[in-house]
């Protein structure tokens, strides 16, 4: 194993851990329930998940026509599966299966 790869992993790993851990030490007890920070944090969850979904979809939608078609089939698969069973596991697998199935049927 090369030393430089280990050093990169350690710098990135330690700093990433600190980003995740240090904010947990913040005192939230004094936070106003209807204050700016409380509203900001309450909205961060849905905003983050929406952002991550869009960020994951953008490269797929900037590919070939076949890639775009597969992605749309996958989105449809997730939507229909979630509407049917209300299960995150089922919908995730159904979406991946729909996308893979579309590729197998010719959208590749």
């Amino acid at each position, binding site marked *: 194993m090369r030393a430089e790869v280990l050093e990169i992993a350690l710098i990135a790993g330690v700093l990433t851990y600190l980003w995740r851990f240090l904010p947990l030490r913040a005192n939230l007890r004094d936070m106003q329930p209807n204050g700016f920070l409380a509203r900001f944090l309450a909205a961060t969850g*849905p905003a983050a998940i929406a952002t991550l979904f869009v960020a994951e979809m953008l490269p797929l939608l900037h590919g070939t026509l076949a890639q775009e078609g597969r992605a749309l089939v996958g989105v449809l698969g997730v939507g229909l599966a979630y509407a049917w069973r209300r299960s*995150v596991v089922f*919908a995730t697998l159904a979406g991946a299966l729909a996308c893979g199935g579309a590729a197998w049927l010719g959208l590749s």
Partner: protein
Amino acid sequence: MGACQRIRSDLCLTENRVGRYRLGMRTGKSPVVAGFQAALPLVLGYFPIAFSFGVSATRNGLSGTEAFALSLIVFAGAAQFLAIALVAGGAPVVVAGLTLAAMNLRHVLYGPTLLQKAGPDAARRFGWIWAFSLTDEVFAAALGALAKGQRFSEGFMVTLGFCAYGSWLAGTAAGAWAGGGALDGWPALSAGLDFMLPALFLALLMSILHGAQVPVIAIAGLATVAATWWFSGTAGLFAGMIAGAVAGVSLPMRRLSDAG
């Protein structure tokens, strides 16, 4: 029975079909069982993505041990894929390390958001353990579970996070072992695996979706597209989260809390 309206970290109020309210403890499952259940989609989603990472790393000249070390120490998917490019491109060590860390800076919001959702009495004694595994997906899964009435506990967080971590390590090891050309002859399988993360995020988004949050989600999505278009993917992630959260400040607190 209506949705759980949390009135304390361990109590919720539910409305029955004739409009009467009932006070009760929030879900009775043990934190470990609940953690395993919440982790299942992550375990299924993480393994193939980590497999792709292992394959990609070995294809780009990293050894299997180096790929595994990145997963073991960093545990941040997108940053690890960028690490492959930086290592393969010969970027200086400090620049590469700081670039990867900067890419993960958005994680500073995750802990306080979960604690705020969990309530003022939420334990964080072992936060130094479960914080390690607070990735995008673990955060999203935890938030989805809390929105469905799961009681916040550190046992739940540790189980959820470290199941995901185990899957990530196992997938990386399998991908590194399979080698650089493992998926070349399987385009349909490769396409399905590539779609696993978008599918997971969409399913999680649907699980917490509430009409009141549509403006937050729309603004986050638009800001992500705009900043990615004009600057970079990392800028898009920051812009989307911050713009969406700021948009949420203008919504009544009760509507935000009810939904997510």
